[in-house]
């Protein structure tokens, strides 16, 4: 399901030597890595499906107001009339109707569909930005460590060790829970998003950092870098012109695979009550509300499935991308 079974990698038995050399040799000539990757990706139906879902979700997030507007339900609008005032459950059990596609929340009768749609915004926004931050810090420090080596490398590597030793979730919770409500000129959702992006991104950079460092170390020993160096190229030139272009593929792959992790991370923080502040809808926050109402299962079903599908889609796509860009990588 995940990896396209390519001819050589998938064979458990001795493979005739000829196959690779003879059939593949000509085909590869004259194609850029991107073209090859795209060719491989096109063949990987599963990854493509994941990619399409990702695109769909991004569109949903971007056009959330339009989508929700079309159905006429504001995500924070109460519908107390639809709630049974003694059991707090929707009067019809779920409240699912043409107006409320996913039903309504117990207690206040808010429309679950529009909350799930709006939840995609927070979820994706934070996951993307946090990933970007991780990738930026990770690349910068990873390349620095890998390229300069020596003391620089050992300091950065040890820093990564320290970061990885932190119980991140505990720490993130503690930080997100104690930061005041206005800081750095930001308030409200903007501050919370910035804070979560910072926390998630900041604690995750060593994952990318390690990979970039490793790749840099091996690239540094390669001939073309030696060639550039022997031609008198300086550090920055080598880093930006020789190393970074070759690091794009692994960074892209691991950044893509970090996104679902970050989505789960954000969901967990929201679930634990330290995410973006209510009433702004988040999937994790909805789940945490829904826990108290487990006897009204549609309430937890929709946000739960939203998280699941989103994370799965990113994982599928990221896996496909990895296989396409670097079939040998695990």
């Amino acid at each position, binding site marked *: 399901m995940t990896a396209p079974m390519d001819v050589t990698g998938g064979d458990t038995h001795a493979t005739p030597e000829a196959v690779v050399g003879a059939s593949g040799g000509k085909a590869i000539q004259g194609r850029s890595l991107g073209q090859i990757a795209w060719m491989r990706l096109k063949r990987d139906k599963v990854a493509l499906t994941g990619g399409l879902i990702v695109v769909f979700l991004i569109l949903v997030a971007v056009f959330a107001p339009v989508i929700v507007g079309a159905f006429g339900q504001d995500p924070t609008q109460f519908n107390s009339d639809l*709630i049974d005032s*003694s*059991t707090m459950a929707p009067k019809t059990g779920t409240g699912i109707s043409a107006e409320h596609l996913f039903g309504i929340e117990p207690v*206040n009768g808010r429309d679950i569909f529009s909350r799930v749609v709006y939840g995609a915004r927070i979820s994706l926004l934070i996951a993307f930005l946090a990933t970007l931050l991780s990738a930026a810090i990770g690349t910068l420090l990873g390349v620095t460590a890998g390229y300069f080596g020596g003391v620089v490398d050992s300091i950065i590597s040890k820093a990564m060790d320290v970061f990885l030793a932190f119980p991140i979730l505990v720490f993130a919770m503690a930080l997100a*829970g*104690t930061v005041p409500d206005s800081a750095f000129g930001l308030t409200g959702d903007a501050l919370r998003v910035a804070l979560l992006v910072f926390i998630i991104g900041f604690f995750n950079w060593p994952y990318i950092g390690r990979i970039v460092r490793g790749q840099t170390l091996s690239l540094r020993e390669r001939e073309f870098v030696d060639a550039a160096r022997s031609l008198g190229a300086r550090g920055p030139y080598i880093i930006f012109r020789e190393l970074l272009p070759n690091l794009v593929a692994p960074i892209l792959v691991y950044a893509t695979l970090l996104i679902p992790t970050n989505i789960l991370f954000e969901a967990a923080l929201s679930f634990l009550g330290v995410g973006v502040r*209510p009433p702004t809808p988040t999937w994790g926050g909805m789940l945490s509300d829904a826990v108290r109402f487990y006897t009204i299962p549609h309430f937890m079903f929709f946000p739960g499935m939203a998280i699941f599908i989103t994370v799965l889609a990113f994982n599928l796509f990221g896996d496909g991308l990895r296989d396409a860009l670097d079939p040998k990588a695990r």
Partner: protein
Amino acid sequence: MHRRRLGVAATGAVLALAVAACGGGSGSSTSSSGGSAAGSESKSEFNAALTQVVNPSDKKGGILKLANPGDWDSLDPADTYYGYSWNFIRLYGRSLLMFKSAVGKEGNQLVPDLAEDLGTPSDDAKTWTYRIKKGIKFEDGTPVTSKDVKYAIERSFDKEVFPDGYTYFNDFLDWPKGYKGPYKTPDINTDSAIETPDDHTIVFHLKQPLSNFDYFAQLPATIPVPKDKDTGAKYKEHVISTGPYKFEKNEIGKGFTLVRNDQWDPATDPNRKALPDGYEVSTNVNADDVDNRILSGDLDVEVTGVGVQSAALGRVLSDPAVKANADNPVSTRLWYTSVNGNVPPLDNIECRRAVQYATDKVALQNAWGGEVAGGQIATSLLPPAIPGHEDFNLYPPGPDNKGDLEKAKQALAACGQPNGFETNIAYRAERPKEKAAAEALQQALGRVGIKLTLKPFPQADYFGTYAGNPGYAKKNKLGLAMNGWQSDWPDGFGFLQQIVDSRVIREAGGSSNISVRDPEVDKLIDQAVRETDTNARNALWTAIDKKVMEDAFILPNVWTKTLLVRSKNATNIFVNDAYGMYDYLGMGVK
């Protein structure tokens, strides 16, 4: 049997029933005490335990199983400040006076426990004397003397060691200057506050007249503590019992077990039946699981008495057979929203009134859990069960109870904010219902242009650092703050003093009153405290209630109602109004 009980509880029952009816429950006094031989086989009905003893029995033996979804705040009598804990503490501790173990309103009655009788006040009500019964012993056989009671109150003075408790004794007794409790200032003579002329007499000296000191004398801090066994903050690990049960095993954070205390002499104690052979209490148990286990008969009592969780609500209410085994009492707890007059534009009374008018009480009630598990919509402060309560509504919320937007807009115009204003609402992050209530207010006030921003704060620091800290609240524009208060005992003083007296507000934070600042109210309180005539005193509490509502410093949300499910295995189940939950002293095992 039922009839006799009902006769005794008659006065209380009327009020309790009225309350139940308000909540929309099908409360009914018609008990089918028909032909069935064993009383315990009588047909159960919804709300039956509000007015009668369900499954009455005198059978001894069995173990009662209780669970607490959270941690017990403390088992130390000096350091526990939860109603359920005061209900439960009577099993292992005897205070000077106690609330009677009886159904409904009768449970509000103070009866002597350690003391031979209620307190004897001096003429100016500044000195109160109690005589202590002879023959009462600690679990190790040592006789209890007045000195043990005095020591217990002295140690409760030290708030660094016992931070969770109340400060009534600290505030009202005439302590010598510089006194810091027996640990830090062991040599200071405290006779100016408490005298023990002999082993069986204890005399309290107050700084000011106090007409209802007997309520102080029922506080757990008067439960005697033997000085040589006191381990300070660690005493909660093994409290020395004076009641019918003592600790066998106590693992803080997990639970404890009580077994019979053979040094307890029933002859000295007309109040306790002591039916079970022991109690098994587990703490930190998943709340939903507690509900399910009570419903399945696996567990007897959810000890905190907060009622079933939202998830089980539907199950209990929709199944008539289950509902017939449930009770829906109103407690003396008010959930409310503090409206901080220090935060502009709420310094203008018209703006505060606009908040009152614009509130959607139905949405609020839903947020707190609805008309059964949430509460009864409150229009004033004093809960119906507390003397002095009067039905009045200064801000009629329209015919559908969803707010009077016209009046709200008029008030806004009068305030000079015709288009509304922006402010923040604080709530405790860990409390989903406070969050829901804050969201409901946000929605409701938004209709008239009052824009609220939600500000969750950790509950541990809610009063000390954030919402309850006047400086912080003002600086961060916490115009509204979710709050709640349960009466320490069922009278106006116990309910109102801590939440409307502006003199309890501390600039360092920590007080429950975070919005009411009205010198007139303070004056009325002083008057009420001195008033020895009960009716006149209650009238004063009513006046205070009205004044605060006029000031619109408090937006009452609901008076809490809880949906309690009776244990399948327990006998003598009834709700004691003093605690607003099942009385743990009476309960036995089938």
